[in-house]
């Protein structure tokens, strides 16, 4: 029953986790070994999200796991939630992205900004995987500057009329419901941004896959077009207001991404370590050479630092004192760290490292997306710069 992946724990970080947090981590780790690892290589090459895994993920409670039990969720603390993200991304960033979007970008806004009726209707359906959600914020011309969006929602006597286009939408083409962010006022009125729950069956709503991705291939990434898309008046998330609302969602998702980066890095380090000990060159394991030991020592050090940093972030989140700037630091650090670990592992693996049979290059390619989405590395640099100087440099 135990996982075949032993994890990386050089500083007894396990000793800082509660029994329950370890139990959650071990369960997800075993699930990844049993259900995800056997199929991920082929799914990645085919460029398909492994949909068959959704019922199992939902049944075990991976979707919106840190939301309350009264809405059909597991009610976990944020450290346990982060550990789920870590373990899923140990398998593949695309699978973690699926769970992140469903939990942090679809269920969280309904939980935080929705009416009681919306919460009671949608959250159990999303937790059980009966509905799959996506988050429509980014537009073709507004990525790092989402406040500039040009998607509009106009109130009519029959409801809200949505027009616009969204891009780079994870889960977009498989989603049965979208959280769409649109301006209800003038096009330069950032305060008028509101969230809407839009079933994808709504007339005027279309989603299509973005083709030709060389990263996150086992994940759906889509473009959504809203053309005179009419939703009822009660489709608006009543407590959403201004660009702050979607940014609050992104803080939730980035928190999970910071954990996910550790998972991907651990997978790469584990693969590199095993390969280094077994690959014989010039009559000895390549792990006995200084160059490869340097790679491994660097990876181990950075993973350990990220583990401690992120665990403290989780404790702050559970205490209710975590700030978005702190999440920026963790997302920026951990994903950059994971990118480096994946690249170094791939290089250590030599020619074998380019094969899908090994995992490092898949992680390496995936992480370029993770580096770029949910606030690019550079944007988080500027967020931190502003946090410490008080001077925005955007």
């Amino acid at each position, binding site marked *: *029953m*135990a996982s*075949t992946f*032993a994890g990386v724990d050089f500083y007894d970080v396990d000793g800082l986790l509660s*029994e*329950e947090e370890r*139990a*959650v981590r*071990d*369960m997800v780790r*075993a*699930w990844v070994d*049993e259900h995800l690892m056997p199929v991920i290589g082929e799914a990645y090459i085919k460029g398909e999200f492994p949909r068959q895994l959704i019922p199992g993920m939902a*049944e*075990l*409670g*991976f979707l919106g*796991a840190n939301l309350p*039990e009264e809405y059909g969720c*597991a*009610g*976990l603390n944020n450290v*346990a939630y982060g550990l*789920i993200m870590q373990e899923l991304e140990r398998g593949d960033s695309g699978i973690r992205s699926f769970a992140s979007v469903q939990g942090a970008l679809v269920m969280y806004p309904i939980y935080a900004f929705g009416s009681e009726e919306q919460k009671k209707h949608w959250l159990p359906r999303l937790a059980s995987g009966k509905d799959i959600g996506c988050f429509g914020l980014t537009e073709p011309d507004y990525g790092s500057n989402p406040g500039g969006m040009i998607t509009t929602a106009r109130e009519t006597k029959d409801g809200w009329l949505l027009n616009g286009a969204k891009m780079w939408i994870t889960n977009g083409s498989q989603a049965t419901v979208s959280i769409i962010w649109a301006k209800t006022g003038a096009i330069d009125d950032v305060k008028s941004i509101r969230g809407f729950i839009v079933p994808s069956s709504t007339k005027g709503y279309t989603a299509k896959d973005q083709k030709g991705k060389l990263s996150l291939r086992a994940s759906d990434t889509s473009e959504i077009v809203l053309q005179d898309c009419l939703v009822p008046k009660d489709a608006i998330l009543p407590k959403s207001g201004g660009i702050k609302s979607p940014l609050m969602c992104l803080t939730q998702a980035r928190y999970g991404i910071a954990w996910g980066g550790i998972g991907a890095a651990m997978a790469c380090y584990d693969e590199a370590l095993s390969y280094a000990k077994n690959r014989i060159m010039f009559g000895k394991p390549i792990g006995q050479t200084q160059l490869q030991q340097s790679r491994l020592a660097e990876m181990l050090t950075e993973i350990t630092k990220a583990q401690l940093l992120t665990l403290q972030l989780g404790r702050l989140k559970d205490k209710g004192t975590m700030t978005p700037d702190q999440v920026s630091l963790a997302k920026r650090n951990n994903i950059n760290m994971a990118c480096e670990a994946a690249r170094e592992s791939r290089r250590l693996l030599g020619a074998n490292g380019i094969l899908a049979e090994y995992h490092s290059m898949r992680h390496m390619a995936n992480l370029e997306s993770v580096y770029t989405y949910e606030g690019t590395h550079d944007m988080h640099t500027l967020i931190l710069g502003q946090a410490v100087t008080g001077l925005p440099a955007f």
Partner: protein
Amino acid sequence: MKIAVCIKRVPDMDLRFSIGAGGKALDPAGLKYDIADFDGYAVEVGLRLVEQQGPGEVTVISVGPAAVQETLRKALGMGADRAIQLAADELPFDGLAIARALAAELKDGGYDLVLFGRMATDSANQTVGPMTAHLMGVPCVTAVSRLDIVAGGGTAERQLEGASETVAFPLPAVVTIDEGVARPRLPSLKGIMAAKKKPLDVRPAQFGEARLTVQSIALPPDRPPGRIVGEGADAVPELVRLLQTEAKVL
């Protein structure tokens, strides 16, 4: 139906381990512990029997130090209803001593069925289940690969060398479970959260005298290094000769 499943917390033997300084036990450093593999199957069998034939209750029982509570809570997370720790700082190696502690707990518990894994994956003695049955005075079927329970009794299938055997037995009974019966489920997140609220009773283990002790434990010797007998087609005759005369596999 009232079912007890006796489970053991064991180190994961698939991970690298070493022998402790005294030479009589594994070095605990770096070991990861989990429910023994076959015991996981037994828990799954118990849960399915109650789910399919309910109403009923599954109690999981483990002997050992406080750490076994983590293993018991894992089984509670899978869906068991209650847990009992028979507390002992150390687990004796003598299966009879453990069986005495278990039988004392089980005999007045009103259990219809007591399940064990076929063996613990660390000590591999395969004794505790049958000895417990003997002390309880109930029938025992070992290494069962299929189990059917009907009113008052059951049938169990066992895999023999080249054949299978079906055994009928009355309840109450002890059955030890082989792999392949039912793949253990993972505890769901809700299950893990619910496990904290389920009853877990702690009572001292009554072993009596333990008469077996481990004298030493040793890892197998390293395999001798491989030998290169030549290269290309020229090496084939020598290779074949060595396979015939030395390795004796041809």
